[in-house]
């Protein structure tokens, strides 16, 4: 059985950054990627807006991926397995995978980085009412068909959900000559980035209706239209105000779910809020030597943050494999008032700074974000607007930490 210090499951932005981080610590690295090329979903994100934070310039998805890919492929210390689907991961870090080139692959790992990304919520998961015709797609599937395969799914489009991929696809399909009639969001606020609402909808005069949902779809073979209605505070549709919009395409951008099927039922502690693992500041899970980073850990808005997070995880995974990860007392990080989750969920006491990432539970204006340890203020940050669609962080000094930490919004 082959051995690598660090085995990385997934060769998207997280996996590639983790590999680079691990290599800088001198580890031997294997990346197991299920697609035919490295890059993950970035390969179908042909729009720009990537890399502003990480590279200080604006790149397309494939360009952003290519920078990492070149680095990974140039490094003889990284073995890349393509079309390799991981079937199992044991607690003592035996990874079993299968690929057409190598058949059944068994690898022993010093440490493992989970970097499998996320998947889109489907029509079935949201219980879409009505018939089951062609013409209903997750936004990402339509994106792959147009940007990788070169095919357009339809001409008259309605989009449910204001997730970023949906917003990007509104613009993309418009540029292909399709008519995007409406984007609707069941919540009273968007789950996407403000800049995408401006650049993908407002610039193209595509209407966005909040607190609105699809109540029924029609059409036997191909979608012929959707009924929509506003929703009340409990998100129940107000059917008296139902209206019909003829269309041949419904795109769903109704949420992303970390794809943790591989570790379902394992000893790794999971967060019910993020649907990812519970981790420390090195992104180490509750099972020593198994790390998690990127969208498989929690869904990010910006790939730049994914790269940064995975780089940290890759470095730490290499240190773990070398037996060099330091042990220190651990404190918990909790989500306080107005905060949906904070991550990492625990940190070690010691020296240096650490960023606590968090999302708020609704739109807030003029609030102060605080991080307190046993009630004592570690850091505060005044904010103008906080929205659930935009991940935030507050950076704290670890040496000030005396006990459990709470991240909260205060007036």
């Amino acid at each position, binding site marked *: 059985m082959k051995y690598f210090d660090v085995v990385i499951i997934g060769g998207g932005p997280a996996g590639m950054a983790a590999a680079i981080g691990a290599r800088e610590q001198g580890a031997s690295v294997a990346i197991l990627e299920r697609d035919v090329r490295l890059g993950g979903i970035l390969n179908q994100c042909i729009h720009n807006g990537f890399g502003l934070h990480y590279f200080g310039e604006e790149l397309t998805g494939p360009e952003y991926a290519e920078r990492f890919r070149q680095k990974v492929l140039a490094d003889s210390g990284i073995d890349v397995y393509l079309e390799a689907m991981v079937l199992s991961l044991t607690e003592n870090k035996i990874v079993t995978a299968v690929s057409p080139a190598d058949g059944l692959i068994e690898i022993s790992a010093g440490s493992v980085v989970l970097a499998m990304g996320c998947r889109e919520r489907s029509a079935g998961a949201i219980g879409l009412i009505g018939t089951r015709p062609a013409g209903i797609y997750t936004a990402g599937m339509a994106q792959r068909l147009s940007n990788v395969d070169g095919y357009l799914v339809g001409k008259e489009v309605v989009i449910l959900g204001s997730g970023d991929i949906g917003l990007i696809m509104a613009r993309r399909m418009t540029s292909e000559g399709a008519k995007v009639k409406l984007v609707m969001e069941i919540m009273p606020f968007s789950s996407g980035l403000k800049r995408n609402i401006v650049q993908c909808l407002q610039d193209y005069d595509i209407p966005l209706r909040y607190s609105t949902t699809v109540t*029924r779809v029609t059409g036997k073979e191909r979608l012929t239209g959707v009924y929509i209605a506003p929703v009340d505070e409990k998100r129940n549709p107000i059917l008296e105000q139902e209206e019909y919009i003829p269309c041949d395409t419904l795109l769903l951008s109704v949420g992303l779910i970390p794809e943790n099927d591989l570790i379902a039922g394992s000893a790794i502690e999971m967060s019910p809020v993020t649907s990812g693992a519970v981790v420390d500041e090195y992104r180490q899970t509750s099972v020593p030597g198994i790390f998690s980073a990127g969208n498989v850990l929690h869904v990010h808005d910006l790939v730049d943050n994914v790269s940064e997070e995975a780089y940290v995880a890759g470095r730490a995974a290499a240190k773990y494999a070398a037996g060099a990860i330091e042990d220190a007392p651990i404190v918990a990080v909790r989500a306080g008032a107005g905060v949906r989750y904070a991550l990492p969920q625990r940190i070690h006491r010691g020296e240096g700074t650490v960023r606590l990432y968090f999302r708020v539970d609704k739109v807030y204006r003029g609030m102060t974000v605080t991080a307190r340890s046993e009630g004592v203020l570690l850091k505060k940050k005044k904010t103008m607007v906080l929205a659930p669609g935009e991940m935030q962080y507050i950076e704290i000094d670890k040496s000030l930490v005396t006990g459990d930490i709470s991240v909260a919004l205060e007036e």
Partner: protein
Amino acid sequence: MNGYDVIVIGGGVVGTAVLRSLSAYRAKVLLLEKSSDVACGSSRANSGIVHAGYDAETGTKKAYFNVKGAAMYRALTEELDVPYKKVGSLVAARKDGLPALQALCDRGIANGVDVRIIGREEILALEPNIADDIEYALYAPEAGIVSPYQLTIAQADHAVVNGAEVRLEEKVIAIDREQDGFVVRTQKGEYHTRYVVNAAGAGGAEVNALVGEEAYTETHAAGDYFILDRKESGVVRTVVFPLPDERGKGILVAPTADGNVILGPTSRKVPHEEAEENAVTAAGLQYVREGVARLMKNVNVRSAIRVYAGTRTAIGSDFIIEESKKVAGFYMLLGICSPGLTSAPAIGEYVAEEIAGKLSLEKKYAIRPLPASFRFREATPQEIALKAQEDPAFGRIVCRCEKVTEGEIVRAVHSPVPARTVDAVKRRVRAGMGRCQGGFCQPRVMEILSRELGIPMTSVRKGDAGSEIAPYEVKDGYEIL
């Protein structure tokens, strides 16, 4: 002249059962199906239950074929390699439901079914998540679960392997009498035959009308279902029903033969023109949620990966299984609603014997088996290693949720009844039936269909004509790095 001995109209579980049984005889048989695949009507969307046989009134065709069919399932599904499990069923009742349960038990015994009434303690041993106020249950250990569409497809495949023909996307538009039989016309051609079997399901009355037989009044009942994620599979072990009422067997909770959990169905009367629309309703789903909550605890409906509706067509209270008295040589299999799936193998055998007798058909000396299948998700690591070495396509996972390889999909496209659409692939190998519902694999499945069938991507369909998934090309092609 293209002379057939028998033409079967309709590729549901009943039509394909008849076809398969007929293929054991020295006869020329043809099945005509209007959809792009077999198992596109009621056989696609039903509860997938092999009923023990206590429901149907004693002495009816329903009771007879149910009990006979159920007994055939173990051997049949083994022969055809179709997922089936004998899990047993419970009809759960509250304290005041005991008399009704007793009546059901008595009927079961009269029908020759192994049934008994059990108390709460025994129920809990079988179903730890049963609702708190359930005191009694009718336990039928012989009840089972099966994949209804896989059974239908396997029956058709097996018939084709044994010389039968299946023609898809051929809707019968006329049937004319001629000397010694009929000429059956579709939009694509005409076929001469000595015998016609009407197994057209929801379209059965229309086919009857083509020969001047009685256009029976059909009632169509649509039922809404939830399918839950595999991770919920531990919540239920047997098929759990409430006490039946005048509308049917009620909302059940059951494992599926493929390892998910099924909840449903409702029973909503729909007009004939909506019988094949299979639209899910919000009220229907709510009714299912409430029905489930009355029956079981800890059923996490929020983990649904799919909601859908299916329609069952009934004529009166019993099956119609008989040769027309008006039109000799025209055999009617109509109103095969529940327990139609359970009964189908027995109906197939019975009808084939009847027709073989009339036409003096002889049995073949030997029946060819279906070629052995390979299911990656059921294979051992050693089997996977061997198979992937033999053909790398069996090492290439396309559907990550259900672990389906390219090799399996290619095989489905070239199977005896070929899969020509994304849905047809899905029903054969489960690509796209997992928790992401094809979010990742559908474009890959489309590429494989396009390549294997030699058709452009823009022509790849979800199901029947008009369901192209990506009908247009983008203006500016983008070359990926």
